[in-house]
């Protein structure tokens, strides 16, 4: 038999012109395209496969610590992720409820098929936006400025700006044991040319790796041997626009189930380590530490007797179940043995094997804070292309890249969020300042001002900005202003009301093991006591003129109870802003500053920070280096690179 004949197009053709082109319709691409189009740009979004729009090739879930806050930030900026998950979730849970307000995190199990379909529908219905299937082979660059893209079908699309959000499709390679083949996520066609061409244009392209666990047939799971994890009773949503009335009652939500690996599972893995691509050296990409494969966990934490596994439904109309915690690239038959060794999965049928996937990444130090590449003007990148992992991280970058590409096309200035304004700001600053050596995941510990970047106040932080950009409607903005006013008025009222030491109050206080009041106490001060909440407070003071809703009450409680800590966080921000105000002149020749350590000099030259604050966040640049740099700048002893830049 003859071998398969394939060929490239022989002729290119000039297709339409757009303001903004977004390459990739994953979680980053969708936000970017919607933002650009909603701002009034004629926008084109291209994807390799229309069935892959907003697809979840890994966890069927959205949110969690830090990530959930990002979803709310995207929503407050007028993005789609929050609304889309609110329409398609099958379980909702608030995590960390026993902890403080800064770290409570919402997480939803998604119906991954409904999630995809809903987002695709949204893109299709969006005015100014065209959704099309195509593989982008290259970008068009003239005089260092990006002017459009070229597809595998030979179409040339011109545009003012381009956003690349190509994810794991970029020279993707799937690995299952000894089996390796070129593939995008979920066995889709990979984009084999784009990143090669970027590399040829001088971009530093790195290779990362991630992975996914096997899926099993839910009808073959013995749930009785596992532990049920149902959804929450109390209504919760990601979008600030979703009403409590739309909450799915817990009995109609789908549960997740908890089980564990055991010694037998570990023995199977150990016995087959010589066939594990992670350890035989065939995987060259760098994998994430926070989401290691099961074989990695067993090698690195050899003394652990068991690891948690969560069984998660992939949707309402499927029996496919995701085995969270069992990410692996072991050979298929070994995966099968591993699955069968787990309690509840003894007879489970594996529907798809887990796999590792390697892909190309644009090393993010090549980006500016607006997500535009330093080398090619009007070219923006977002999502996994920038070395992150996670749908939420992708969406956060996507909306920012879309806003910035859209604003550039409209002739407007950059939109940048600072570290003290949003997790999205932390994420992007980390990427462009520190770069990343592994797929980057947002963690609450990455945010030094996390008390200010709460899940509950994303709207307070960002709605105003979203409105200014033009992604938040006047109507929604008006509602936001009303909420803000209600909070402020009630807080100031509570600061004025004095509670008298009546019998009722003292009975209540003593019932909670506290000393009775001698004198009166200001209501706001009383509210700070751990056993007092707003509702109990209302027993002792007159109710406000208008009844307050739960979201307003939540803000009043948090701002009052944690006022001391919030003030501390704000003091830290003020300190940082001082450093942020110290600008570093452009084009410094760091090699001429001898007092700076060699590693720091190289990093500074590579990243070219714009402020002392940013420079201080570069890993490998120590405070001593910053002190030297600061002194040099203050003394005006800066050695500047002569402005004879290439190509100008």
């Amino acid at each position, binding site marked *: 038999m003859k071998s398969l004949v394939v060929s490239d197009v022989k002729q290119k053709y000039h297709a339409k012109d757009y303001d903004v082109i977004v390459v990739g319709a994953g979680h980053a691409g969708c936000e970017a395209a919607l933002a650009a189009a909603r701002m009034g740009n004629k926008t084109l979004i291209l994807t390799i496969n229309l069935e892959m729009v907003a697809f979840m090739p890994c966890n069927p879930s959205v949110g969690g610590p830090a990530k959930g806050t990002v979803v709310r930030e995207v929503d407050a900026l007028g993005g789609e992720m929050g609304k889309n998950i609110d329409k398609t979730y099958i379980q909702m849970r608030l*995590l960390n409820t026993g902890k403080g307000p800064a770290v409570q995190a919402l997480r939803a199990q998604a119906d991954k098929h409904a999630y995809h379909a809903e987002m695709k529908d949204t893109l299709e219905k969006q005015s100014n936006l065209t959704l099309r299937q195509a593989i982008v082979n290259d970008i068009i660059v003239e005089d260092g400025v990006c002017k459009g893209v070229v597809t595998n079908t030979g179409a040339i699309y011109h545009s003012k700006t381009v956003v690349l959000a190509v994810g794991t499709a970029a020279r993707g390679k799937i690995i299952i044991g000894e089996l390796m083949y070129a593939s995008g996520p979920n066995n889709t066609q990979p984009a084999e040319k784009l990143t090669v061409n970027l590399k040829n244009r001088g971009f530093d392209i790195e290779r990362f790796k991630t992975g996914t666990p096997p899926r099993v047939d839910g009808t073959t799971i013995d749930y009785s041997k596992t532990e049920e994890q149902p959804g929450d009773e109390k209504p919760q949503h990601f979008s600030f626009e979703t009403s409590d009335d739309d909450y799915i009652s817990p009995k109609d939500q789908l549960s997740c189930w908890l089980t564990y690996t055991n010694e037998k599972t570990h023995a199977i893995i150990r016995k087959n380590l010589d066939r594990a691509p992670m350890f035989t050296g065939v995987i060259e990409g760098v994998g994430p530490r926070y989401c290691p494969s099961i074989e990695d*966990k067993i090698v690195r934490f050899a003394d652990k007797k068991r690891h948690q596994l969560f069984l998660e439904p992939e949707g309402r109309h499927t029996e496919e179940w995701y085995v969270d915690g069992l990410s692996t690239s072991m050979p298929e038959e070994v995966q099968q043995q591993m699955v069968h060794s787990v309690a509840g999965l003894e007879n489970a049928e594996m529907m798809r094997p887990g796999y590792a996937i390697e892909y190309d990444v644009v090393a993010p130090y090549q980006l500016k804070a607006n997500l535009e590449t330093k080398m090619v003007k009007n070219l923006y990148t977002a999502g996994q292309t920038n070395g992150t992992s996670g749908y939420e991280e992708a969406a956060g970058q996507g909306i920012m890249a879309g806003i910035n590409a859209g604003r550039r096309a409209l002739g407007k200035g950059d939109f940048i969020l600072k570290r003290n304004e949003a997790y999205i700001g932390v994420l992007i600053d980390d990427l462009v300042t520190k770069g990343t050596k592994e797929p980057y995941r947002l963690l609450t*510990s*990455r945010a030094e001002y996390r008390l200010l970047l709460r899940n509950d106040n994303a709207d307070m932080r960002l709605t105003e900005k979203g409105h200014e950009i033009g992604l938040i409607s006047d109507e929604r903005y008006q509602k936001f202003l009303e909420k803000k006013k209600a909070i402020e008025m009630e807080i100031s009222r509570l600061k004025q009301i004095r509670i008298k030491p009546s019998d009722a109050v003292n009975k209540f206080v003593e019932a909670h093991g506290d000393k009775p009041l001698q004198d009166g106490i200001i209501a706001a001060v009383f509210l700070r006591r751990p056993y007092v909440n707003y509702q109990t407070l209302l027993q002792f003071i007159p109710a406000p003129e208008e009844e307050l809703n739960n979201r307003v009450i939540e803000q009043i409680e948090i701002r009052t109870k944690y006022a001391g800590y919030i003030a*501390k966080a704000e003091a830290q921000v003020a300190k940082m802003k001082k450093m942020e105000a110290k600008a570093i002149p452009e084009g410094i020749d760091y090699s001429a500053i001898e007092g700076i350590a060699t590693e720091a000099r190289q990093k500074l030259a590579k990243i070219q920070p714009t402020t002392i604050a940013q420079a201080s966040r570069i890993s490998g640049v120590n405070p001593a280096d910053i002190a030297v740099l600061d002194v040099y700048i203050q003394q005006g002893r800066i050695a500047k690179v002569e402005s004879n830049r290439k190509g100008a």
Partner: protein
Amino acid sequence: MALTTTDFDTIAAISTPPGEGGISIVRISGDDAIKVADKLYRGKNLDKVASNTINYGHIIDPETGEEADEVMVSVMRAPHTYTKENLIEINCHGGIVATNKVLQLVLSNGARMAEPGEFTKRAFLNGRIDLSQSEAVMDLIEAKTDRSMKAAISQLDGNLSHLIKHLRKDILDVLAQVEVNIDYPEYDDVETMTSKLLREKAKDVHARIVQLLKTAKQGKILRDGLATSIIGRPNVGKSSLLNNLLHEDKAIVTDVPGTTRDVLEEYVNVRGVPLKLVDTAGIRKTTNKVEKIGVERSKKAIQSSDLVLLVLNASEELTDEDRELIKATSGKKRIIILNKTDLPLKLDIAQVNGLTNGDKVIQAAAIKDDGLKDLEEQIAKMFFEEGIENSQNDVMVTNARHIGLLNKAKQALEDVLKGLDDGMPVDLVQIDMTRCWDFLGEITGDSYQDELIDQLFSQFCLGK
């Protein structure tokens, strides 16, 4: 091509304390240091001599050919020098006039007068030493006694850094555990950082910082000297006490440039404790002019003192002025000295004891010999009650910036404990724990955040 404007010019200064000494050193640093010295030097060709050599010769005025001094010249070539630049040290032998002449010649032949601390600043800017070390060098330069020097050297070696890093490591462990509980709430693999655990850790670190701060008081005294004033009516013997304290080698006199002798500070080495004598000019004046010192002036001196030596005349009855001075010094650490006990005793010692709440009273005919020894012993005891020997192996905090930061770190830990008492959640209370960590980091000049994340992943088995 890069326009390098980073080359430093060549600087010079007299590096030994001003005043009459056996030798004094003129130091020159910079690219042209050797060239400048060579112009003035008659002897070997300094440009040709090996690095780290000392060369005998003469400094001459190149214009007149006149000899300025007989000298030894140390030649140290970049980069292995204190400043990482070419470094020349001219050991002058002819006293202050000759040294000044040598400096003048150096300055008129291509060097510029160094600003205070500029040699150390260059060592820092050229990457020779880090911030905490450069602080230590400044302390070392200003060390008043051997013991001060020891404390500064220990810091230079990084003993303090070592200790602080240890503290930070322990805090980091706690923080990582809190973080992991937050970022992986569904994970049961990691022990939950409860308020009880956090409280224990905070108390532990707090106790260690308090311990460290205890040395701070002594450290500050060693570094800055113990501000001491001698107070008393005219003619009670203040000036003889002063002279006895200052006798022989004990006096270290620093002339603050640009000021009159009136604010001259005089240091006395009392068993390793540098006493900084306040307003000695005032005391001297009285001996010259028999001018009565106003009580107001005394009060001012008392205010700025760590220690007051109150001198009373035992051969006279207590006067109102004495009483007023006793009252004015009551809040201070003080030693009462009953002088002139060789004359007939008229002072009611019981009355003095009553007025001074049992503060130490020393009796002496004139404050010298045994009386002086008594006094010195008393001073050492007062400020180093826990024994000096014991603290020698330990780290001693001497730097005001470090002390400030340690106090802030301590306060942050107290906030942690208060937050826990108030029933605040661990992840909020942790803000103060992080602040404590930051303050300590400012001492050693370490940054954070990245460390925490690495810690998170190296210590715990994670994965969603």
